[in-house]
C-alpha cells in the first residue's frame, strides 16, 4: 500500500491555477525528490498536503487517512511531518527547549511513554545531527546550517512515518549539505519515507531514487534521476523553450 497518495490535486488563487490536477504516489521506504523551476508550485503542493493551505479539489491520502480539511497539527500527529523552505527557529529559547516543543505532541508522547525515554531519544537525535554540544545555546546564536539541522531534528522528534523536507540544502555549505544528505540517507535506510523539494540538484539527484518534476502547477515527468535529465520536457522547463534561432543541449 502506498504511504502517500496525491490524486488530482488542484489549487487556485483567484484566477491563477497554482496546482493543476497533480498526482503521484509514494511507497513506504521510498526517497522521492520533487523538483521544478522557481514558481512551479512545489511549496504550494507541500502546503496543501500538510494542511496549511486548503485545496480546491482532489485527494490526499496518507496511510489510509484522508487529509483534506484536517488541521496541520492533526496531520503531524498522524505521522506526516514537514520542514520549511526558510528556517523556522524558535527565537528566544535555548536549543534544548526548542527541541522539546515537538515532544509535547500526542504522537511523540505515545511513542515514548516515559519522560526519560523521550529525553534520551531527543538528545540522541541531536547528537546524530551534530548539535549534541549545543543544548544550552540560545537559538538566536546558531548559524544558518545549525538552524537548518535543528529544524530537521525537531521534525524527527514527532516520530514521523514520512518526512517532507522543503529545500533542506538551502543556505548550507558543501560540507553541511553532505552532512544533511548523509543523515537523510541513514533515516531512509532505517525505514523513514522521505520526500524532498530541492533546487540544488547536484546533491539531490545523488540522494533520491525517484523524481517528480513539476512546472506551472502540473506534473510533467516522473522517473529515476537518470531518466529525468534526459526528458526533453524537463530540460525545456529548466532551460527555457527552444527558440527557433538557436538549439540547446
Amino acid at each position: 500500500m502506498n504511504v502517500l497518495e496525491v490524486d488530482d490535486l488542484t489549487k487556485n488563487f483567484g484566477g491563477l491555477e497554482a496546482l493543476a490536477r497533480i498526482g503521484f504516489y509514494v511507497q513506504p521506504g521510498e526517497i522521492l525528490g520533487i523538483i521544478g523551476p522557481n514558481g512551479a508550485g512545489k511549496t504550494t503542493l507541500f502546503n496543501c498536503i500538510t494542511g496549511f493551505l486548503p485545496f480546491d479539489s482532489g485527494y490526499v491520502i496518507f496511510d489510509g487517512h484522508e487529509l483534506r480539511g484536517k488541521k496541520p497539527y492533526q496531520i503531524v500527529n498522524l505521522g506526516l511531518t514537514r520542514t520549511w523552505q526558510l528556517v523556522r527557529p524558535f527565537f528566544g529559547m535555548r536549543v534544548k527547549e526548542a527541541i522539546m516543543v515537538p515532544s509535547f505532541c500526542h504522537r511523540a508522547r505515545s511513542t515514548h511513554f516515559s519522560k526519560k525515554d523521550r529525553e534520551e531519544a531527543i538528545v540522541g537525535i541531536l547528537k546524530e545531527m551534530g548539535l549534541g554540544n549545543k543544548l544550552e545555546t540560545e537559538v538566536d546564536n546558531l548559524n544558518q546550517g545549525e538552524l537548518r539541522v535543528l529544524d530537521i531534528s525537531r521534525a524527527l522528534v514527532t516520530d514521523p512515518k514520512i518526512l517532507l523536507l522543503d529545500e533542506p540544502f538551502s543556505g548550507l555549505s558543501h560540507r553541511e549539505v553532505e552532512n544533511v544528505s548523509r543523515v537523510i540517507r541513514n533515516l531512509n535506510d532505517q525505514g523513514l519515507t522521505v520526500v524532498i523539494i530541492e533546487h540544488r540538484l547536484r546533491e539531490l539527484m545523488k540522494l533520491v531514487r525517484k523524481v517528480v518534476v513539476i512546472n506551472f502547477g502540473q506534473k510533467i515527468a516522473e522517473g529515476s534521476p537518470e531518466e529525468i535529465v534526459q526528458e526533453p520536457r524537463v530540460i525545456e522547463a529548466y532551460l527555457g523553450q527552444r527558440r527557433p534561432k538557436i538549439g540547446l543541449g
Partner: protein
Amino acid sequence: MDLKRGLARVIENQSPFGLLILVAMALLPVISDNIFYIEIVKLAAIYAIFAMSWDILTGYTHEVNFGVAFFIGGAGYFSGILNSFFSFSPYLAVPLAALAAGILGIWIGYLTLRLRGPYFAMATLAFASILFKLSFIFYEFTGGEEGISGLEPFTDDPMRDFYVAWVVMVVVYFILCIYARSKHGIILKAIRADEDATQSAGINTAYYKIEAFAISGLLAGIGGGVFAHSQMHIGPTMLSGYLSVIVVLLAMIGGMGTIVGPLVGAICLSILNESLRMVEEYRIMIYTGLLILLIYLAPDGLINLRSIKNSRILSFVFLGDRKST
C-alpha cells in the same frame, strides 16, 4: 507528572531577587505599623497580581492584551454584587468571580484566536470598553458612576487584610512560575516565535492560546476580587482603559515574559507612585516622566536588559538563570 517536573524546575530556577521582594513585603508590618504604608504596599501587591496575570498572556505570546480591566473590574463587580446583593462571603465570592472571569477568558480567547497584532489589541480593548459602558447602563446593579460601596472586607483587621493580599500574590506568583516553566509556557514561547512552526511540531496552538487567555483572565479576576474587597468598594475605574494601560506599563517596564519582571515592576512603581503623593502637584508629571524615561532606557523592560542577561551574576540574581558554561 508535568506538575512535579514543573515544580522541580521552578524551585531550582527561582529568582533570588523576586523571593527577596516577597519576603521583604511580608516583613513590613513587623517593622512598621503605620497603616498608611501598609495600605500602599497592599495596593502594590494587588497591582503585582494584575501585572503578572497580564504577563502570562502577552509576555509569552506577544499578542498585546489591552483589556485586562475587563477581567479585573468584571470579577470585582461580580464579586461585589454577590457580596452586597446576595451576601456571599468574600472568600466565596472572589473565587466564583475569578472562575467566571476565567470562563469569559476562554470565550474571548476563542473569539480573538485569529487576530494578530493591532487587531488583537483593539479587540481586547473593545471588550473592556463594552463592559465599562454596561456598568453605567445597568446602574441599578452596578451603582453606575459611584459603583458599589460597603463591600465586606476579608478580615476586620487591616494588618490581616494585608496578609490576605500578600498570600494571594505569592500563590499567584508561584502558580505562574510553574505554568511558565512547564510545557505550557514553552509552547507559548514557541507560538510567540513562530505559530506555524509550532503547528508543524504537532501542537494544537489554538488550545494553548485559549488556555493562556483563560488563566490570565482567572488570575486577573482574583486580583480584581481581592482589590474590591480590600477597598470595600468597586467602581468603574476598575473597568477603565486607564487601568488596562497602567497594568501594561507596569508589566512592560518590569520586563515582559518573565513573571518576576512584572512583579518587581508593579511593586516598585506602585510604591513610588503613592510615595510621590507627598509632592501631589508634581506627582503625575514626575511619575509619567519617569515611566517614559524607563521605557526609553529599557524597551524590553528592566529585567530584560542586555546588561543583566550578559552578566552571570546579575542574570542569576534577577532571573534565576544558572548558566552551565
